[in-house]
């Protein structure tokens, strides 16, 4: 059966979908969807074909949008997506993660919700905000957001989440209890001698290696890291990269040693492409060495950034790599990053890029 690739794009002004056949040479753009709401994360469930979008609107608050017909029509719900009366209200959904029959949503201010009815209603996973570190969670530039959710592929009890700037947390009991898992990741913004706290790190994004649930790759505000023990400890893998600062990280769909990152020029230097020349950086040996991938990417005057959820891979062979820029361009590679081409331009600020492969 022929396969089509959907690239699901969240932007500051609505959601968009790019679609191509498996050759990935010609793309069609659909959108804007979701009433032009700011959409922080658009993700597909490949099992059901349902697309979910997490967002928040200045007027109307947070919601998770849903399409069961590949974007032709959409519904939205936030029923139950709220903290207790008197608590600071939720302003936006920042990330969405489907896993079998469960759907998770990470929100701002940071917290976790789950839905057992495909996004119609939501329940607060209260254990996370009961963690003793909760009073000391500090917001990053984007606010106090729960942005990364990594679900164990074979065990619904286990998951990891990332909060800026509280760090990585792990549960093995479906969210009842959590432990901080940040050992080895730096917090350069803390006073000298206090740079390796138990929690409080500014994690930007992290992903699981293909087929290796214990291996995680992390892009932090302060470095790039790999963990081989489910986040209990992290090792720096930033040597060979042009900076220690960036936002997204994307794992290869089948090779656990291959991962992609996009370092920027630094947190106080504009957060542009280093030297204004765009590159995706790839490792094929789990972070020991890195290769810059530039073919097809602008090599002058590239004053854009790439946000934390705005890079993804696909499940085809050879693997596709996609990223969206703060200036509204989506670049795609159909050869694991060896060369790129723009497949959409002039979109709003791109906040997320994900892929879903469907039967054509």
């Amino acid at each position: 059966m022929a396969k089509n690739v959907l690239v699901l794009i969240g932007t500051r002004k609505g959601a968009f979908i790019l679609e191509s056949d498996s050759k990935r040479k010609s793309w069609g753009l659909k959108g804007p969807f979701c009433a032009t709401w700011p959409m922080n994360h658009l993700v597909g469930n490949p099992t059901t074909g349902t697309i979910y979008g997490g967002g928040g609107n200045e007027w109307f608050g947070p919601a998770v949008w849903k399409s069961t017909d590949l974007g032709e029509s959409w519904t939205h719900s936030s029923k139950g997506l709220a903290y207790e009366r008197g608590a600071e209200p939720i302003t936006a959904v920042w990330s969405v993660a489907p896993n079998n029959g469960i759907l998770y949503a990470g929100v701002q201010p940071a917290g976790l919700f789950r839905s057992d009815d495909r996004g119609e209603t939501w329940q607060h996973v209260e254990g996370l905000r009961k963690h003793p570190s909760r009073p000391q969670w500090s917001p990053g530039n984007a606010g106090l957001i729960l942005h990364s959710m990594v679900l164990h592929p074979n065990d619904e009890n286990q998951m990891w989440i990332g909060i800026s700037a509280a760090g990585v947390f792990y549960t093995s009991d479906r969210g009842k209890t959590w432990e901080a898992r940040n050992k080895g990741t730096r917090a350069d913004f803390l006073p000298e001698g206090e740079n390796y706290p138990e929690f409080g790190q500014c994690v930007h994004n992290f992903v699981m290696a293909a087929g290796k649930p214990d291996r995680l790759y992390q892009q932090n505000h302060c470095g790039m890291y790999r963990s081989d023990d489910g986040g209990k400890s992290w090792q720096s893998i930033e040597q060979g990269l042009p900076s220690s600062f960036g936002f997204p990280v994307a794992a290869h769909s089948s090779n656990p040693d291959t991962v992609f990152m996009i370092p920027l020029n630094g947190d106080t230097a504009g957060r542009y492409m280093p030297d204004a020349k765009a590159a995706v950086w790839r490792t094929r040996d789990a972070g020991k060495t890195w290769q810059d991938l530039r073919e097809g990417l602008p090599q002058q005057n590239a004053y854009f950034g790439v946000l934390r959820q705005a890079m993804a891979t696909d499940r085809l062979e050879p693997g596709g790599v996609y990223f969206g820029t703060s200036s509204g361009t989506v670049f795609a590679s159909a050869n694991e990053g060896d060369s790129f081409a723009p497949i959409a331009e002039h979109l709003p600020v791109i906040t997320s890029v994900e892929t879903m492969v469907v039967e054509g």
Partner: protein
Amino acid sequence: MPKDSRHTRPSQTVAITVRLPGVLVDLFPGSTRSVTMPASTVDEMMDEFDRRWPGMRDRLCDSTPAIRKHINVFVDGERARLDTPLEPGAKVFVIIAISGG
């Protein structure tokens, strides 16, 4: 025998008219910009919205509970809160604030 108003729920007797913003109506198929409904407070009005179009209250109110920061409700020309009473025949406007970029 005349009805004793002290034993009558106000929401059963007070009819108000409400004007909703088009961008809100667009989110709820079947809703209309001009609505007549029973409600004796703004809070009851929000509940009635939700009864007619499930989810609409969440779009206009947060969990504090309060009217959302960038939503304004005017009752007979005065800016209102959730506990603002509604007189029979009140004219209510729900308006989105100027925001965005």
